[in-house]
Protein backbone atom coordinates (compact mmCIF):
# COMPACT_ATOMS: atom_id res chain seq x y z
CA UNK A 1 0.00 0.00 0.00
CA UNK A 2 1.11 3.55 -0.64
CA UNK A 3 2.27 5.62 2.30
CA UNK A 4 0.85 8.90 3.60
CA UNK A 5 3.04 11.38 5.45
CA UNK A 6 1.43 13.00 8.48
CA UNK A 7 3.09 16.08 9.94
CA UNK A 8 2.90 15.86 13.74
CA UNK A 9 1.86 18.89 15.75
CA UNK A 10 3.10 18.39 19.30
CA UNK A 11 4.21 20.41 22.30
CA UNK A 12 7.40 18.95 23.82
CA UNK A 13 6.37 15.43 22.90
CA UNK A 14 2.67 15.62 23.73
CA UNK A 15 0.71 15.12 20.50
CA UNK A 16 -2.12 17.57 19.84
CA UNK A 17 -5.54 16.17 18.97
CA UNK A 18 -5.74 17.38 15.32
CA UNK A 19 -2.74 15.15 14.50
CA UNK A 20 -4.63 12.08 15.72
CA UNK A 21 -7.55 13.11 13.50
CA UNK A 22 -5.11 13.32 10.57
CA UNK A 23 -4.08 9.72 11.25
CA UNK A 24 -7.73 8.63 10.98
CA UNK A 25 -7.98 10.33 7.57
CA UNK A 26 -4.56 9.11 6.42
CA UNK A 27 -5.60 5.49 6.99
CA UNK A 28 -8.34 5.91 4.38
CA UNK A 29 -5.67 6.64 1.78
CA UNK A 30 -2.69 4.51 2.75
CA UNK A 31 -0.26 3.60 5.52
CA UNK A 32 0.39 6.60 7.78
CA UNK A 33 4.03 7.56 8.30
CA UNK A 34 4.34 10.28 10.94
CA UNK A 35 6.99 13.00 10.84
CA UNK A 36 7.77 14.38 14.27
CA UNK A 37 10.25 17.24 14.68
CA UNK A 38 11.90 19.19 17.46
CA UNK A 39 12.17 18.85 21.20
CA UNK A 40 10.43 15.68 22.44
CA UNK A 41 9.94 14.25 18.92
CA UNK A 42 10.77 10.70 19.97
CA UNK A 43 8.26 10.87 22.86
CA UNK A 44 5.38 11.15 20.39
CA UNK A 45 5.94 7.66 18.93
CA UNK A 46 3.85 5.61 21.39
CA UNK A 47 0.71 7.75 20.94
CA UNK A 48 1.16 7.85 17.15
CA UNK A 49 1.55 4.05 16.99
CA UNK A 50 -1.67 3.59 18.99
CA UNK A 51 -3.47 5.64 16.33
CA UNK A 52 -2.18 3.93 13.22
CA UNK A 53 1.32 5.23 12.42
CA UNK A 54 3.28 2.38 10.83
CA UNK A 55 6.45 4.41 11.10
CA UNK A 56 7.52 7.53 12.99
CA UNK A 57 10.31 9.58 11.42
CA UNK A 58 11.93 11.82 14.01
CA UNK A 59 14.45 14.63 13.90
CA UNK A 60 15.52 16.97 16.64
CA UNK A 61 17.76 19.94 16.01
CA UNK A 62 18.01 23.38 17.57
CA UNK A 63 17.21 24.95 14.19
CA UNK A 64 13.56 23.87 14.36
CA UNK A 65 13.03 26.22 17.30
CA UNK A 66 15.58 28.88 16.40
CA UNK A 67 14.27 29.75 12.92
CA UNK A 68 10.76 30.20 11.55
CA UNK A 69 9.05 27.51 9.41
CA UNK A 70 11.77 26.89 6.75
CA UNK A 71 13.85 24.26 8.67
CA UNK A 72 10.68 22.20 9.13
CA UNK A 73 10.14 22.37 5.37
CA UNK A 74 13.68 21.01 4.87
CA UNK A 75 12.82 18.08 7.16
CA UNK A 76 9.48 17.33 5.56
CA UNK A 77 11.08 17.48 2.13
CA UNK A 78 13.69 14.95 3.33
CA UNK A 79 10.83 12.71 4.52
CA UNK A 80 9.05 13.03 1.15
CA UNK A 81 12.24 12.07 -0.65
CA UNK A 82 13.00 9.13 1.62
CA UNK A 83 9.47 7.68 1.41
CA UNK A 84 9.23 8.25 -2.37
CA UNK A 85 12.57 6.54 -2.92
CA UNK A 86 11.49 3.43 -1.00
CA UNK A 87 7.96 3.10 -2.33
CA UNK A 88 5.07 5.29 -3.32
CA UNK A 89 3.80 8.37 -1.52
CA UNK A 90 0.05 9.05 -1.79
CA UNK A 91 -0.19 12.39 0.04
CA UNK A 92 1.24 14.70 2.69
CA UNK A 93 -1.21 15.77 5.41
CA UNK A 94 -0.72 18.67 7.82
CA UNK A 95 -2.93 20.36 10.41
CA UNK A 96 -4.53 23.62 9.19
CA UNK A 97 -2.82 25.85 11.72
CA UNK A 98 -1.12 29.03 10.49
CA UNK A 99 2.22 27.21 10.67
CA UNK A 100 0.89 23.97 9.17
CA UNK A 101 -0.40 25.86 6.14
CA UNK A 102 2.89 27.72 5.68
CA UNK A 103 4.96 24.53 5.90
CA UNK A 104 2.61 22.86 3.40
CA UNK A 105 2.75 25.86 1.06
CA UNK A 106 6.53 25.91 0.87
CA UNK A 107 6.75 22.14 0.55
CA UNK A 108 4.28 22.24 -2.37
CA UNK A 109 6.47 24.74 -4.23
CA UNK A 110 9.63 22.70 -3.56
CA UNK A 111 8.27 19.35 -4.67
CA UNK A 112 6.22 20.80 -7.54
CA UNK A 113 2.84 19.86 -6.11
CA UNK A 114 -0.56 21.41 -5.72
CA UNK A 115 -1.95 22.25 -2.29
CA UNK A 116 -5.43 22.22 -0.79
CA UNK A 117 -5.94 23.96 2.55
CA UNK A 118 -8.63 23.75 5.22
CA UNK A 119 -10.10 20.41 4.17
CA UNK A 120 -12.95 19.25 6.41
CA UNK A 121 -13.02 15.72 5.03
CA UNK A 122 -10.86 13.43 2.92
CA UNK A 123 -11.65 10.30 0.90
CA UNK A 124 -9.61 8.06 -1.35
CA UNK A 125 -10.42 8.53 -5.06
CA UNK A 126 -9.45 6.89 -8.35
CA UNK A 127 -7.29 9.85 -9.27
CA UNK A 128 -5.95 10.58 -5.81
CA UNK A 129 -7.47 11.81 -2.55
CA UNK A 130 -10.59 13.99 -2.74
CA UNK A 131 -10.77 16.81 -0.22
CA UNK A 132 -13.97 18.47 0.96
CA UNK A 133 -13.73 22.19 1.75
CA UNK A 134 -16.30 24.41 3.35
CA UNK A 135 -15.99 27.83 1.64
CA UNK A 136 -17.50 31.33 1.51
CA UNK A 137 -18.19 31.31 5.25
CA UNK A 138 -19.50 27.74 4.98
CA UNK A 139 -22.22 28.63 2.48
CA UNK A 140 -20.71 26.21 -0.10
CA UNK A 141 -19.16 22.77 0.10
CA UNK A 142 -16.59 21.91 -2.57
CA UNK A 143 -14.80 18.72 -3.50
CA UNK A 144 -11.33 19.11 -4.98
CA UNK A 145 -8.26 17.14 -5.78
CA UNK A 146 -4.67 17.81 -6.67
CA UNK A 147 -3.71 17.16 -10.26
CA UNK A 148 0.06 17.69 -10.21
CA UNK A 149 2.68 16.15 -7.95
CA UNK A 150 2.15 14.55 -4.55
CA UNK A 151 -1.02 15.99 -2.97
CA UNK A 152 -0.28 18.34 -0.05
CA UNK A 153 -3.42 18.81 2.05
CA UNK A 154 -4.02 20.70 5.29
CA UNK A 155 -7.00 19.62 7.39
CA UNK A 156 -9.04 21.61 9.91
CA UNK A 157 -9.37 20.42 13.51
CA UNK A 158 -12.48 18.34 14.37
CA UNK A 159 -12.77 17.06 10.78
CA UNK A 160 -12.53 13.39 11.75
CA UNK A 161 -12.89 11.28 14.89
CA UNK A 162 -9.83 10.11 16.82
CA UNK A 163 -9.72 6.33 16.37
CA UNK A 164 -7.42 3.90 18.14
CA UNK A 165 -5.75 1.60 15.56
CA UNK A 166 -2.63 -0.11 16.81
CA UNK A 167 0.28 -0.17 14.36
CA UNK A 168 4.02 -0.80 14.53
CA UNK A 169 5.07 2.84 14.91
CA UNK A 170 8.69 1.92 14.29
CA UNK A 171 10.87 4.92 15.13
CA UNK A 172 13.44 5.92 12.53
CA UNK A 173 15.76 8.86 12.69
CA UNK A 174 15.30 11.19 9.73
CA UNK A 175 18.52 12.66 8.36
CA UNK A 176 17.97 16.40 7.92
CA UNK A 177 20.39 19.05 6.77
CA UNK A 178 18.99 22.49 7.44
CA UNK A 179 20.06 24.71 4.55
CA UNK A 180 21.65 28.07 5.30
CA UNK A 181 18.90 29.68 3.25
CA UNK A 182 16.40 28.24 5.73
CA UNK A 183 17.99 30.18 8.58
CA UNK A 184 16.80 33.58 7.38
CA UNK A 185 14.19 34.31 10.01
CA UNK A 186 15.48 34.19 13.56
CA UNK A 187 13.13 33.48 16.44
CA UNK A 188 14.66 35.95 18.88
CA UNK A 189 12.36 35.01 21.75
CA UNK A 190 9.40 32.79 22.42
CA UNK A 191 6.87 33.29 25.20
CA UNK A 192 4.59 30.29 25.63
CA UNK A 193 0.96 31.15 26.18
CA UNK A 194 -0.17 30.62 29.76
CA UNK A 195 -2.58 27.77 30.13
CA UNK A 196 -6.05 28.72 31.34
CA UNK A 197 -6.82 25.16 32.40
CA UNK A 198 -9.73 25.16 29.91
CA UNK A 199 -9.83 23.00 26.79
CA UNK A 200 -8.14 24.30 23.66
CA UNK A 201 -10.55 26.39 21.59
CA UNK A 202 -10.10 24.56 18.28
CA UNK A 203 -10.17 21.11 19.88
CA UNK A 204 -13.02 21.55 22.40
CA UNK A 205 -16.29 19.62 22.12
CA UNK A 206 -18.19 22.62 23.47
CA UNK A 207 -17.43 26.32 22.99
CA UNK A 208 -19.16 29.19 24.79
CA UNK A 209 -18.51 32.59 23.19
CA UNK A 210 -19.25 36.12 24.28
CA UNK A 211 -19.59 39.23 22.11
CA UNK A 212 -20.15 42.95 22.39
CA UNK A 213 -23.28 42.18 24.41
CA UNK A 214 -21.07 41.06 27.31
CA UNK A 215 -20.29 44.74 27.69
CA UNK A 216 -16.92 44.77 29.46
CA UNK A 217 -13.98 42.60 30.51
CA UNK A 218 -15.38 42.58 34.03
CA UNK A 219 -18.44 40.66 32.79
CA UNK A 220 -16.61 37.87 30.95
CA UNK A 221 -16.55 35.69 34.10
CA UNK A 222 -20.28 35.20 33.41
CA UNK A 223 -19.33 33.47 30.13
CA UNK A 224 -16.42 31.63 31.75
CA UNK A 225 -18.66 30.25 34.51
CA UNK A 226 -21.04 28.73 31.96
CA UNK A 227 -18.09 27.34 30.01
CA UNK A 228 -16.61 25.78 33.14
CA UNK A 229 -19.92 24.19 34.12
CA UNK A 230 -20.00 22.49 30.70
CA UNK A 231 -16.25 21.75 30.49
CA UNK A 232 -16.13 24.07 27.48
CA UNK A 233 -13.61 26.41 25.88
CA UNK A 234 -14.26 30.17 25.88
CA UNK A 235 -14.49 32.13 22.63
CA UNK A 236 -15.09 35.78 21.78
CA UNK A 237 -16.22 37.87 18.81
CA UNK A 238 -13.82 40.37 17.27
CA UNK A 239 -15.87 43.21 18.74
CA UNK A 240 -15.16 41.84 22.23
CA UNK A 241 -11.48 41.28 21.39
CA UNK A 242 -11.01 44.71 19.79
CA UNK A 243 -12.56 46.31 22.86
CA UNK A 244 -9.81 44.61 24.89
CA UNK A 245 -12.25 42.48 26.92
CA UNK A 246 -10.80 39.12 25.96
CA UNK A 247 -7.48 37.91 24.41
CA UNK A 248 -7.14 37.66 20.64
CA UNK A 249 -6.17 33.98 20.92
CA UNK A 250 -9.79 33.33 21.86
CA UNK A 251 -11.29 35.10 18.85
CA UNK A 252 -13.62 32.99 16.74
CA UNK A 253 -14.08 33.86 13.08
CA UNK A 254 -12.38 34.61 9.82
CA UNK A 255 -9.35 36.27 11.39
CA UNK A 256 -9.43 34.25 14.58
CA UNK A 257 -9.88 30.56 15.21
CA UNK A 258 -12.11 28.39 13.15
CA UNK A 259 -14.05 26.02 15.41
CA UNK A 260 -16.29 23.08 14.68
CA UNK A 261 -17.44 21.75 18.07
CA UNK A 262 -20.39 19.53 18.91
CA UNK A 263 -22.04 22.51 20.62
CA UNK A 264 -21.46 26.25 20.08
CA UNK A 265 -23.16 28.74 22.39
CA UNK A 266 -23.08 32.41 21.30
CA UNK A 267 -24.07 34.99 23.90
CA UNK A 268 -24.41 38.66 22.93
CA UNK A 269 -23.09 38.00 19.42
CA UNK A 270 -25.01 39.30 16.38
CA UNK A 271 -23.71 36.72 13.88
CA UNK A 272 -21.78 38.78 11.28
CA UNK A 273 -20.55 36.87 8.22
CA UNK A 274 -16.94 37.00 9.44
CA UNK A 275 -17.96 35.47 12.77
CA UNK A 276 -20.02 32.79 11.05
CA UNK A 277 -17.00 31.89 8.92
CA UNK A 278 -15.37 30.54 12.06
CA UNK A 279 -18.26 28.62 13.64
CA UNK A 280 -20.90 27.76 11.05
CA UNK A 281 -19.82 24.12 10.75
CA UNK A 282 -20.52 23.50 14.46
CA UNK A 283 -22.91 20.58 14.91
CA UNK A 284 -25.39 22.23 17.28
CA UNK A 285 -25.66 26.01 17.58
CA UNK A 286 -27.33 27.90 20.42
CA UNK A 287 -27.66 31.67 20.78
CA UNK A 288 -28.69 34.02 23.52
CA UNK A 289 -29.39 37.53 22.26
CA UNK A 290 -31.79 40.23 23.34
CA UNK A 291 -32.57 41.24 19.76
CA UNK A 292 -34.90 38.74 18.11
CA UNK A 293 -33.84 40.13 14.70
CA UNK A 294 -30.14 39.26 15.24
CA UNK A 295 -28.85 37.25 12.23
CA UNK A 296 -27.33 34.63 14.55
CA UNK A 297 -30.87 33.28 15.07
CA UNK A 298 -30.92 32.17 11.39
CA UNK A 299 -28.28 29.59 12.29
CA UNK A 300 -29.45 28.24 15.58
CA UNK A 301 -30.88 24.93 16.62
CA UNK A 302 -32.08 26.63 19.79
CA UNK A 303 -32.28 30.35 20.51
CA UNK A 304 -33.27 32.34 23.55
CA UNK A 305 -34.35 35.93 23.02
CA UNK A 306 -33.38 37.58 26.25
CA UNK A 307 -30.80 39.40 28.34
CA UNK A 308 -27.66 37.29 28.64
CA UNK A 309 -27.12 38.59 32.16
CA UNK A 310 -30.33 36.84 33.19
CA UNK A 311 -30.15 33.77 30.97
CA UNK A 312 -26.47 32.80 31.19
CA UNK A 313 -26.07 32.74 35.01
CA UNK A 314 -29.40 30.93 35.37
CA UNK A 315 -28.29 28.38 32.77
CA UNK A 316 -25.01 27.88 34.63
CA UNK A 317 -26.98 27.11 37.79
CA UNK A 318 -29.25 24.71 35.89
CA UNK A 319 -26.25 22.88 34.43
CA UNK A 320 -24.59 22.60 37.84
CA UNK A 321 -27.79 21.28 39.46
CA UNK A 322 -28.39 18.74 36.72
CA UNK A 323 -24.80 17.55 36.76
CA UNK A 324 -25.08 17.29 40.55
Amino acid at each position, binding site marked *: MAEVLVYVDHVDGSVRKPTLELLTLARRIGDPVAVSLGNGAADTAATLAEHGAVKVLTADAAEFADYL*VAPKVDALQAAVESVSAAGSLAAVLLPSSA*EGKEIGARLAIRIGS*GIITDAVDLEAGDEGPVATQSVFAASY*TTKSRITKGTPVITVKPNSAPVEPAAAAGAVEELAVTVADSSKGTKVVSRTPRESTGRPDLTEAAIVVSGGRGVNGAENFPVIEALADSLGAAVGASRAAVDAGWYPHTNQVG*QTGKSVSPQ*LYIAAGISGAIQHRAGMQTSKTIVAINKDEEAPIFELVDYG*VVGDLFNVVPALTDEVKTRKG
Partner: protein
Amino acid sequence: MSLRIVVCVKYVPDATGDRHFAEDLTVDRDDVDGLLSELDEYAVEQALQIKEAADDAEITVLTVGPEDANDAIRKALSMGADKGVHVEDEDLHGTDAVGTSLVLAKAIEKTGYDLVVCGMASTDGTMGVLPAMLAERLGVPQVTQLSEVSVEGGPNGTVKGRRDGDTATEQLEASLPAVVSVTDQSGEARYPSFKGIMAAKKKPVEELELDDLDIDADEVGLEGAWTKVEDATERPARTAGTIVKDEGEGAKQLAEFLAGQKFI
Protein backbone atom coordinates in the same frame (compact mmCIF):
# COMPACT_ATOMS: atom_id res chain seq x y z
CA MET B 1 19.10 54.42 -1.48
CA SER B 2 15.42 54.20 -1.43
CA LEU B 3 13.66 51.31 0.37
CA ARG B 4 11.57 49.55 -2.27
CA ILE B 5 8.36 48.16 -0.79
CA VAL B 6 5.97 46.00 -2.83
CA VAL B 7 2.51 45.48 -1.29
CA CYS B 8 0.51 42.55 -2.70
CA VAL B 9 -3.21 43.22 -2.70
CA LYS B 10 -6.09 41.07 -3.90
CA TYR B 11 -9.36 42.17 -5.45
CA VAL B 12 -12.12 40.02 -3.95
CA PRO B 13 -15.91 39.67 -4.09
CA ASP B 14 -17.63 41.48 -1.22
CA ALA B 15 -18.02 39.03 1.68
CA THR B 16 -21.33 40.57 2.68
CA GLY B 17 -22.73 39.96 -0.83
CA ASP B 18 -24.16 36.69 -2.12
CA ARG B 19 -20.90 34.99 -3.20
CA HIS B 20 -21.20 31.98 -5.46
CA PHE B 21 -19.49 29.87 -8.11
CA ALA B 22 -19.74 30.23 -11.89
CA GLU B 23 -20.42 27.25 -14.16
CA ASP B 24 -16.71 26.42 -14.54
CA LEU B 25 -16.50 26.28 -10.72
CA THR B 26 -14.43 29.44 -10.45
CA VAL B 27 -15.59 32.37 -8.31
CA ASP B 28 -18.38 34.28 -10.01
CA ARG B 29 -17.05 37.82 -10.13
CA ASP B 30 -19.83 39.26 -12.28
CA ASP B 31 -22.77 39.23 -9.89
CA VAL B 32 -21.09 40.46 -6.73
CA ASP B 33 -19.34 43.79 -6.14
CA GLY B 34 -15.59 43.53 -5.81
CA LEU B 35 -13.25 45.44 -3.56
CA LEU B 36 -9.74 45.57 -2.13
CA SER B 37 -9.62 42.67 0.35
CA GLU B 38 -10.13 44.28 3.77
CA LEU B 39 -7.26 42.24 5.16
CA ASP B 40 -4.90 43.75 2.57
CA GLU B 41 -5.75 47.25 3.80
CA TYR B 42 -3.72 46.30 6.88
CA ALA B 43 -0.77 45.48 4.61
CA VAL B 44 -1.04 48.86 2.85
CA GLU B 45 -1.26 50.60 6.24
CA GLN B 46 1.88 48.92 7.61
CA ALA B 47 3.76 49.68 4.38
CA LEU B 48 2.78 53.35 4.74
CA GLN B 49 3.97 53.40 8.36
CA ILE B 50 7.27 51.76 7.40
CA LYS B 51 7.69 54.38 4.68
CA GLU B 52 6.91 57.21 7.08
CA ALA B 53 9.55 55.90 9.51
CA ALA B 54 12.17 55.45 6.76
CA ASP B 55 14.43 58.15 5.33
CA ASP B 56 13.45 57.31 1.81
CA ALA B 57 11.01 54.69 0.56
CA GLU B 58 8.71 53.98 -2.33
CA ILE B 59 5.59 51.79 -2.26
CA THR B 60 4.39 49.81 -5.27
CA VAL B 61 1.00 48.05 -5.02
CA LEU B 62 0.84 44.83 -6.99
CA THR B 63 -2.25 42.88 -7.93
CA VAL B 64 -2.94 39.87 -10.14
CA GLY B 65 -6.54 39.88 -11.24
CA PRO B 66 -9.18 40.87 -13.79
CA GLU B 67 -9.65 44.37 -15.23
CA ASP B 68 -11.74 45.53 -12.27
CA ALA B 69 -8.88 44.68 -9.92
CA ASN B 70 -7.61 48.12 -10.89
CA ASP B 71 -10.09 49.39 -8.24
CA ALA B 72 -8.04 47.65 -5.57
CA ILE B 73 -4.88 49.38 -6.81
CA ARG B 74 -6.64 52.78 -6.89
CA LYS B 75 -7.84 52.35 -3.33
CA ALA B 76 -4.30 51.57 -2.14
CA LEU B 77 -2.92 54.53 -4.12
CA SER B 78 -5.51 56.82 -2.55
CA MET B 79 -4.39 55.62 0.89
CA GLY B 80 -0.89 56.82 -0.05
CA ALA B 81 1.00 54.18 -2.05
CA ASP B 82 3.12 55.62 -4.86
CA LYS B 83 2.51 53.47 -7.92
CA GLY B 84 0.77 50.35 -9.12
CA VAL B 85 1.47 47.19 -11.10
CA HIS B 86 -1.50 45.26 -12.47
CA VAL B 87 -0.96 41.81 -13.98
CA GLU B 88 -3.95 40.98 -16.14
CA ASP B 89 -4.22 38.31 -18.77
CA GLU B 90 -7.19 36.26 -19.92
CA ASP B 91 -5.09 33.12 -19.54
CA LEU B 92 -4.99 33.75 -15.79
CA HIS B 93 -8.66 32.84 -15.31
CA GLY B 94 -8.91 30.01 -12.77
CA THR B 95 -5.29 30.14 -11.57
CA ASP B 96 -4.73 28.41 -8.20
CA ALA B 97 -2.40 29.29 -5.34
CA VAL B 98 0.76 27.72 -6.78
CA GLY B 99 0.15 29.47 -10.12
CA THR B 100 -0.66 32.81 -8.50
CA SER B 101 2.54 32.64 -6.47
CA LEU B 102 4.52 32.13 -9.69
CA VAL B 103 2.98 35.20 -11.30
CA LEU B 104 3.41 37.35 -8.19
CA ALA B 105 7.02 36.26 -7.68
CA LYS B 106 7.96 37.12 -11.28
CA ALA B 107 6.19 40.47 -11.09
CA ILE B 108 7.90 41.28 -7.78
CA GLU B 109 11.32 40.48 -9.26
CA LYS B 110 10.60 42.56 -12.32
CA THR B 111 9.49 45.50 -10.17
CA GLY B 112 12.49 45.26 -7.85
CA TYR B 113 12.06 45.02 -4.08
CA ASP B 114 13.64 45.12 -0.66
CA LEU B 115 10.48 44.31 1.26
CA VAL B 116 7.27 42.53 0.19
CA VAL B 117 4.22 43.14 2.39
CA CYS B 118 1.15 40.88 2.21
CA GLY B 119 -2.09 40.48 4.13
CA MET B 120 -2.58 37.48 6.46
CA ALA B 121 -5.05 35.81 4.05
CA SER B 122 -7.48 36.82 1.33
CA THR B 123 -11.15 37.13 2.30
CA ASP B 124 -12.30 34.80 -0.50
CA GLY B 125 -9.76 31.96 -0.86
CA THR B 126 -8.66 32.44 2.79
CA MET B 127 -5.73 30.08 2.34
CA GLY B 128 -3.04 32.18 4.05
CA VAL B 129 -0.30 30.54 1.98
CA LEU B 130 0.81 33.07 -0.63
CA PRO B 131 3.37 34.91 1.57
CA ALA B 132 5.14 31.64 2.47
CA MET B 133 5.11 30.60 -1.20
CA LEU B 134 6.58 33.96 -2.23
CA ALA B 135 9.40 33.66 0.30
CA GLU B 136 10.12 30.16 -1.02
CA ARG B 137 10.13 31.26 -4.66
CA LEU B 138 12.12 34.45 -4.09
CA GLY B 139 14.56 32.67 -1.78
CA VAL B 140 14.28 35.30 0.96
CA PRO B 141 13.25 35.14 4.65
CA GLN B 142 9.58 34.70 5.53
CA VAL B 143 8.47 36.91 8.42
CA THR B 144 4.75 36.26 8.53
CA GLN B 145 1.51 36.64 10.51
CA LEU B 146 2.83 39.72 12.31
CA SER B 147 0.75 41.80 14.67
CA GLU B 148 3.63 44.29 14.96
CA VAL B 149 6.28 45.12 12.37
CA SER B 150 9.15 47.57 11.96
CA VAL B 151 12.09 48.09 9.62
CA GLU B 152 15.42 49.55 10.60
CA GLY B 153 18.38 50.58 8.48
CA GLY B 154 16.89 51.07 5.01
CA PRO B 155 17.26 48.68 2.05
CA ASN B 156 20.08 46.69 3.69
CA GLY B 157 18.49 46.78 7.10
CA THR B 158 16.44 44.38 9.19
CA VAL B 159 12.78 43.69 9.67
CA LYS B 160 11.45 42.81 13.12
CA GLY B 161 8.04 41.67 14.15
CA ARG B 162 5.81 39.90 16.65
CA ARG B 163 4.01 36.71 15.66
CA ASP B 164 1.19 35.56 17.94
CA GLY B 165 1.05 31.84 17.29
CA ASP B 166 -1.21 29.10 18.57
CA THR B 167 0.88 28.18 21.57
CA ALA B 168 3.37 31.04 21.90
CA THR B 169 4.22 34.62 21.01
CA GLU B 170 7.44 34.94 19.03
CA GLN B 171 9.71 37.88 18.31
CA LEU B 172 11.16 37.49 14.83
CA GLU B 173 14.02 39.15 13.01
CA ALA B 174 15.41 38.90 9.47
CA SER B 175 17.66 40.80 7.09
CA LEU B 176 16.19 42.44 4.01
CA PRO B 177 15.15 41.55 1.38
CA ALA B 178 12.23 39.68 2.99
CA VAL B 179 8.55 38.84 2.68
CA VAL B 180 6.26 39.82 5.54
CA SER B 181 2.55 39.39 6.17
CA VAL B 182 0.54 41.33 8.73
CA THR B 183 -2.65 40.45 10.61
CA ASP B 184 -5.72 42.52 11.41
CA GLN B 185 -4.19 43.06 14.86
CA SER B 186 -1.43 45.23 13.35
CA GLY B 187 -3.47 48.45 13.56
CA GLU B 188 -6.49 50.04 11.86
CA ALA B 189 -6.01 51.08 8.25
CA ARG B 190 -6.38 54.77 7.42
CA TYR B 191 -9.19 56.11 5.27
CA PRO B 192 -8.19 57.75 2.01
CA SER B 193 -8.41 61.54 2.31
CA PHE B 194 -10.03 63.66 -0.41
CA LYS B 195 -6.55 64.87 -1.35
CA GLY B 196 -5.37 61.27 -1.47
CA ILE B 197 -8.18 60.25 -3.79
CA MET B 198 -7.43 63.15 -6.16
CA ALA B 199 -3.68 62.45 -6.12
CA ALA B 200 -4.26 58.73 -6.83
CA LYS B 201 -5.75 59.55 -10.21
CA LYS B 202 -2.39 60.84 -11.38
CA LYS B 203 -0.25 58.01 -10.02
CA PRO B 204 1.18 55.58 -12.59
CA VAL B 205 -0.15 52.03 -12.93
CA GLU B 206 1.87 49.66 -15.07
CA GLU B 207 -0.12 46.97 -16.92
CA LEU B 208 1.64 43.62 -17.40
CA GLU B 209 0.69 40.48 -19.27
CA LEU B 210 2.07 36.95 -18.92
CA ASP B 211 4.42 37.54 -21.86
CA ASP B 212 6.03 40.43 -20.02
CA LEU B 213 6.84 38.03 -17.19
CA ASP B 214 8.06 35.15 -19.37
CA ILE B 215 5.29 32.89 -18.15
CA ASP B 216 3.65 30.42 -20.53
CA ALA B 217 -0.13 30.28 -20.63
CA ASP B 218 -0.09 26.56 -19.77
CA GLU B 219 1.72 27.24 -16.48
CA VAL B 220 -1.34 29.05 -15.10
CA GLY B 221 -5.12 29.28 -15.48
CA LEU B 222 -7.65 26.49 -15.09
CA GLU B 223 -5.78 24.21 -17.47
CA GLY B 224 -2.40 24.69 -15.84
CA ALA B 225 -3.75 24.48 -12.30
CA TRP B 226 -2.19 22.11 -9.77
CA THR B 227 -5.62 21.61 -8.20
CA LYS B 228 -9.08 20.93 -9.59
CA VAL B 229 -12.46 21.72 -8.07
CA GLU B 230 -14.73 18.87 -9.09
CA ASP B 231 -17.91 19.87 -7.37
CA ALA B 232 -19.40 22.86 -5.53
CA THR B 233 -22.75 22.63 -3.82
CA GLU B 234 -24.59 25.24 -1.85
CA ARG B 235 -24.88 24.15 1.74
CA PRO B 236 -28.50 23.46 2.58
CA ALA B 237 -29.92 26.15 4.86
CA ARG B 238 -29.87 24.98 8.44
CA THR B 239 -33.31 23.76 9.44
CA ALA B 240 -35.05 26.46 11.40
CA GLY B 241 -34.43 26.01 15.10
CA THR B 242 -36.63 26.57 18.09
CA ILE B 243 -36.61 30.13 19.36
CA VAL B 244 -38.07 31.05 22.72
CA LYS B 245 -38.49 34.40 24.45
CA ASP B 246 -37.09 34.53 27.93
CA GLU B 247 -39.88 35.34 30.33
CA GLY B 248 -38.09 33.94 33.34
CA GLU B 249 -38.01 30.37 32.06
CA GLY B 250 -35.52 30.81 29.17
CA ALA B 251 -32.57 29.23 30.96
CA LYS B 252 -34.67 26.26 32.12
CA GLN B 253 -36.01 25.68 28.60
CA LEU B 254 -32.50 25.89 27.15
CA ALA B 255 -31.19 23.47 29.79
CA GLU B 256 -34.01 21.06 28.83
CA PHE B 257 -32.89 21.27 25.20
CA LEU B 258 -29.22 20.72 26.08
CA ALA B 259 -30.11 17.76 28.30
CA GLY B 260 -32.21 16.30 25.46
CA GLN B 261 -29.14 16.54 23.22
CA LYS B 262 -27.04 14.85 25.96
CA PHE B 263 -24.81 17.87 26.48
CA ILE B 264 -25.64 17.90 30.16
